[in-house]
């Protein structure tokens, strides 16, 4: 009988620790499948963040480096400058990348570091228990915005991809989502393109993936997917923000 589905070799056998309904697992698999399809697992070094995906180093079946909070792009820079012929990626959440690591991601993009960043945005700090993130939506409740994000007090949520796309070094910027099967397929395409552009030496690439946090949003997994679609996508519009001219 023909095999129609196989577990990717891009992931180890270690069971994920993620909460039920969390979309990190889906995004991990997409990254792993892309690395396997591009046949670069043996040539790849991934950098894990601090946050829910801190244990990503146990899940990806390639060399991994666990960074300090927010510093993954700096660590990846060090690795890529030593091994310019290898594939280097960071996998970061919104607290890690948009808050404490804002300087590192901006300057990695500005330098045009030839790395790929998978930016998982679920509008909240998950690992520490649901605190407000720079990406938490206006009015959204979090443990440190218990009355809902008051933008006169905490400012408006950050649209990181649009900001990074203003930098000449950022060659590929796309925002995608995993709220339904069609979106998941688009996400995989974007991730693949970002890694292909790294392989052709284009420059910095980032894929922002809108993701859910049922546990800290206080919603069921299904409600979470709907909440993402109805609340996050209007503020964080999906689509490609920049791509090198020659591959458009």
């Amino acid at each position, binding site marked *: 009988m023909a095999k129609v589905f196989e577990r990717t070799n891009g992931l*180890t056998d270690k069971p994920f620790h993620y909460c039920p309904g969390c979309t990190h697992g889906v995004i991990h698999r997409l990254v792993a499948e892309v690395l396997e399809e591009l046949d670069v*697992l*043996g*040539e*790849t*070094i991934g*950098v894990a963040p601090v946050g829910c995906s*801190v244990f990503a*180093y*146990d899940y*990806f*079946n*390639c*060399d*991994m*480096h*666990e*960074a*300090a909070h927010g*510093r993954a792009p*700096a*660590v*990846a*820079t*060090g*690795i*890529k*400058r*030593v*091994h310019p012929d*290898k594939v280097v990626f960071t996998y970061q959440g919104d607290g890690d990348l948009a808050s404490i690591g804002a*300087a*590192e991601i*901006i*300057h990695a993009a500005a330098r045009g570091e030839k790395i790929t960043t998978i930016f998982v945005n679920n509008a909240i700090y998950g690992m520490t228990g649901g605190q407000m993130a720079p990406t938490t939506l206006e009015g959204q409740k979090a443990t440190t915005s218990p009355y809902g994000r008051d933008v006169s007090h905490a400012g408006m949520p950050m649209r990181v991809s649009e900001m990074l796309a203003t930098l000449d070094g950022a060659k590929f910027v796309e925002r995608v989502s995993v709220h339904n099967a069609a979106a998941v397929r688009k996400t995989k395409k974007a991730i693949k393109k970002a890694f292909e552009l790294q392989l052709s030496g284009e420059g910095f690439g980032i894929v922002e993936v809108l993701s859910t946090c049922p546990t800290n949003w206080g919603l069921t997994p299904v409600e979470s997917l709907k909440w993402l679609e109805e609340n996050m996508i209007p503020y964080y519009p999906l689509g490609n923000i920049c791509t090198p001219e020659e591959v458009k």
Partner: protein
Amino acid sequence: MAKVLMKGNEAIGAAAIKAGCNYFFGYPITPQNELPEYMARELPNIGGIFLQAESEVAAINMVYGAAGAGARVMTSSSSPGIALKQEGISYIAGAELPCVIVNIVRGGPGLGGIQPAQSDYYQSTRGGGNGDYRHVVYAPATIQETVDLVMESFDVAEQYRMPVMVVGDGMIGQMMEPIEFKEPKKRPLEPKTWATDGTKGKRKPNIINSLFIDPQELEDHVLKLERKYDEIKEKEVRYENYNVEDADVVVVAYGTTSRIAKNAIAKCEEEGMKVGLIRPITLWPFPDKAFDEITDKTKGVLTVEMSTGQMIDDVKIALNGRKPVHFYGRTGGMVPTPDAIVDEIKKIAGGVK
């Protein structure tokens, strides 16, 4: 090889390159800028990489990445910048990676000043970063010794898989002295089989990490580090002792201050006094056994520092109450004069001829 005249900061860069350091990540801060500038000029000529990071925090994390990837890598800064690097230094120590960090110390606290100081002794030896960790700290007193120790630091870092810090001060960084580059003694260096350079499908993934979520695993890891530190205390202590056994007063000083102390001791000797010197070359591990040479004859020990008294704690620990310990220091970028040290020595010596 003929000696060359070089400024301290540039000599450090030249020594690092001679030792095979091909990667440098740094951020500008006075008084160490000639070092990154030297690396920016020279590393591209040998196929190496100099990269100016967006901050000291980023620079040390680039070092963390490059060290994990198997490179000989270095960063440098000065006091407030080293404070910012402590996060990365703790991670590098925890993940057991080799690298060399140079601190050309200036006065503090805060933005402090830009003149020579030794007020980062605690920061260097107590671990400014979090957790149970140590790293070797060298404190050279001449440019030649700086060059020798920088070259050896890369081997020491790789032998023990840990960060090594070389602490100078504005004087060491800015002064010119004739130097030559000498190969350090051969050390047993293992191939870097742990480096993240791609599995090539031939081995299990390598993981560079300092996270151990299970407390028992973390304790085991920390105790493993501790055994390494014990071995270093056994094998890597360095110091210079001068006339300690016969001294009425023993001065303890390191780096630039030890040179001034030597001038003070020479003046005392001209007056017929017997004054010894203990000069720690490794601030960690501290040369406790250098103090075993102090005899009953010695009336007291004088610690001289360009700080308000930081190394004095280690001097007291080493002496364990055997002798009174006195202190003289200038701080904030002020440098002690030989005469001021002579006066302090005389106060301790009392009527002794």
